[in-house]
Structure formats: structure tokens, C-alpha cells
């Protein structure tokens, strides 16, 4: 068994003690007369103002809360929220999931797709084929920094390079040309 201590109660108790001491020092009459009102033990000629009067006048004009004061007035729940109240909040229509009305059918493969997004199945298909082409390129280049300065053409089984593909690099793929990969 282990105890969990959060720092807040200790800090709060410490500040309350400090604040109590301050209050007792500055306003002894408010505290209730338990400590005798203290005065200077030695009458010294000093400034002709009392610290109390100035403090009262100062406090009434400008109420600037310091960090010590504002920390004791933090927001905290007063009562436990009942399950009925919690349910009203959690099940409110703005918290429920909205149904999406932008789902269509892909004309190529027939899977579902969102209107503004590429079809996932077709994208995966193209990605797999691209990966195989890239592997062929890697085999041909044989290492990093060997990319040629000319264009690349991908030819499938039974295809010959045309006169347009004169100076280009040719990558062979050992399969039939897929229907979606249109030849130029």
C-alpha cells in the first residue's frame, strides 16, 4: 500500500499559516484580542505616520491581489456531479459522432471511398507496383548516388521501346502491363 500526496494541501497550509501571521501582525484588533496589542518598546523619534493608517488608506484605494492571496481563492467544485448531470453532458448531441455523408463508391474497384480522398484499395495497388518498380531500379543502379540524368521508362512483358524512348533509361518488369498503367 502506498500513499498518494499531492503538493497542493501542503502549500495551501503553509500559505495559510504565513497569511495568518501577517494578519495578526498588521491588524491585531481584528484577530480578537488574544494577543496583547503591541507597541514599540522604545519610543523613538521617527516618521510621524503609523503603518496601520497608511495601510488602511492604501488598501481601500487599490486592491491589487498578490500571488499569495489569489492562490487561496482558486476555483474548486462545490458538489459532486451526479451521474444524471454527467450523462446529460456526455450524451448531448454535440458530443455524439456525426454520420458522414461524403462516402461514395470507387468506380474502378467498387470499394468505398471518401469523396475528397483517393480510394484506399486503388492506392495500395499502385503503391505495391511502385515498390516493385523501385526494387528493379535499385538493382539496376546498384548503389546510392547512381541516378542517371535521363528519364526512365517502365516496360512490361512483350513491349519494345519506341522511337520516343531513345535516350531514356528502361526498366523491365516481368509481368503483364496493369490496366491502370497507361502506356504513352
Amino acid at each position: 500500500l502506498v500513499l498518494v500526496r499531492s503538493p497542493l494541501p501542503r502549500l495551501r497550509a503553509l500559505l495559510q499559516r504565513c497569511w495568518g501571521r501577517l494578519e495578526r501582525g498588521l491588524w491585531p484588533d481584528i484577530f480578537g484580542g488574544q494577543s496583547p496589542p503591541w507597541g514599540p518598546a522604545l519610543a523613538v523619534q521617527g516618521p510621524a505616520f503609523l503603518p496601520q493608517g497608511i495601510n488602511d488608506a492604501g488598501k481601500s484605494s487599490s486592491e491589487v491581489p498578490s500571488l499569495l492571496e489569489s492562490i487561496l481563492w482558486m476555483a474548486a467544485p462545490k458538489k459532486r456531479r451526479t451521474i444524471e448531470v454527467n450523462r446529460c453532458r456526455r450524451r448531448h448531441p454535440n458530443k455524439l459522432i456525426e454520420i458522414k455523408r461524403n462516402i461514395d463508391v470507387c468506380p474502378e474497384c467498387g470499394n468505398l471511398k471518401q469523396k475528397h480522398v483517393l480510394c484506399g484499395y486503388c492506392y495500395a495497388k499502385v503503391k505495391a507496383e511502385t515498390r516493385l518498380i523501385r526494387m528493379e531500379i535499385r538493382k539496376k543502379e546498384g548503389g546510392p548516388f547512381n541516378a542517371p540524368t535521363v528519364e526512365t521508362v517502365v516496360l512490361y512483358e512483350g513491349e519494345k521501346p519506341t522511337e520516343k524512348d531513345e535516350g531514356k533509361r528502361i526498366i523491365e518488369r516481368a509481368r503483364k502491363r496493369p490496366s491502370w498503367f497507361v502506356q504513352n
Partner: protein
Amino acid sequence: SGAAWARSLLSWARPERWLASGSLFPLSCIHTSTSLQRIGKWEKKNRIVYPPQLPGEPRRPAEIYHCRREIKYSNDKMWYLAKLIKGMSIDQALAQLEFSDKKGAKVIKEVLLEAQEMAVRKHNVEFKSNLHIAESLTGRGRYVKRIRCHGKGMFGIMKISRCHYFVKLVEGPPPPPEPPRTGFDQAKEYVQQLRNRTLVHTL
């Protein structure tokens, strides 16, 4: 029709149908929950067998119960997905779940596909699209408490929550949504309540 009504009422309480093994050896039909842990109530709902329907009765739609236990997801978060697909047709539900970003959406989609396949193979459903979701519920699974470390040597206790998901598919198109209650309906009901009052202790 009275006999048929009585039979249909007691159809759920047919003891010979509840026993998995044959009725020849009654002593061996006692189930002990040793392996496969406890078979939950939702799984047992698939085992009820109704008596054959009479020729004049309307066709009883097929009901398929399926569930998945101890999904590593929060019960509250799963509830939102269950509420989303309540009352939808199975195709619409699968479409919504496919494009939902939640972790539980993937799990519920698998459960629905499993249930659809079960329906076609075992429960004599003709068209796999002709199903709708009659009930979709979540339940609380087993929680485990763990320590979560904060700064300054402080720690909190976090709970690792799991949930169950239950779904009931019924054959047929989804029922039309209920029209929202208008003020006119509420007023009519109020007037009817006033009219139903009777005078007591009078002549």
C-alpha cells in the same frame, strides 16, 4: 391460435434444446465452466430454437447475436460508436465505421463482418445486405490498476480499462426512424390525460 400463442410463449423454456449433447445420456449434459471461461448470456442467445411456424403466421425475421469480449478500449468511448450505428443497415454501418478515426471502429467493423458471415452460413439469411442492427451495446470489461509516475516522486493510480461489445443483427430493412415529438403531440397527450380523469367518491 391459443395453443400457438401458449407454445410461442414457452418456446424459450424448452430444456431439451438448451443442452448441447443429445438427450440419451442426461447425466453427461451437465455443463461445467472449466475451459473457455464462462459462456456469457449473449452467446447463449444464439442457441434458442423456435418451434416451426404455422402456415398462416408472418415470417419471423432471423436474429443473430454476436459479441466480442475484453476489447482494449474504454467503455465510454466505445459507447459513442455503438450509438452511431444503432438502427442502421449493415452496409451503412460498415461504411461509417470504415472512415471513422476511432480505435474501436476497426474492432466493431470486424465484429459486424463476423456476424454477417455467421448469419449467412448458420442462420439461414438469404442476402447478407438485408440485415440491420437492432441492438448495439457496450459493457464494462475487467479493469486493472497501474501506477503512473508524475514528477517530484509523485504518482497516480491509473486504470487500464477494457470493454465488451454486443450486437444483434435482424434480417430485413432497417425500421424507419421515429418522427420527433412535436408540441402538438404533447398537447394532445395532455388533453387526453385530462379527459381520462374520473370523479371518485361521488354519485
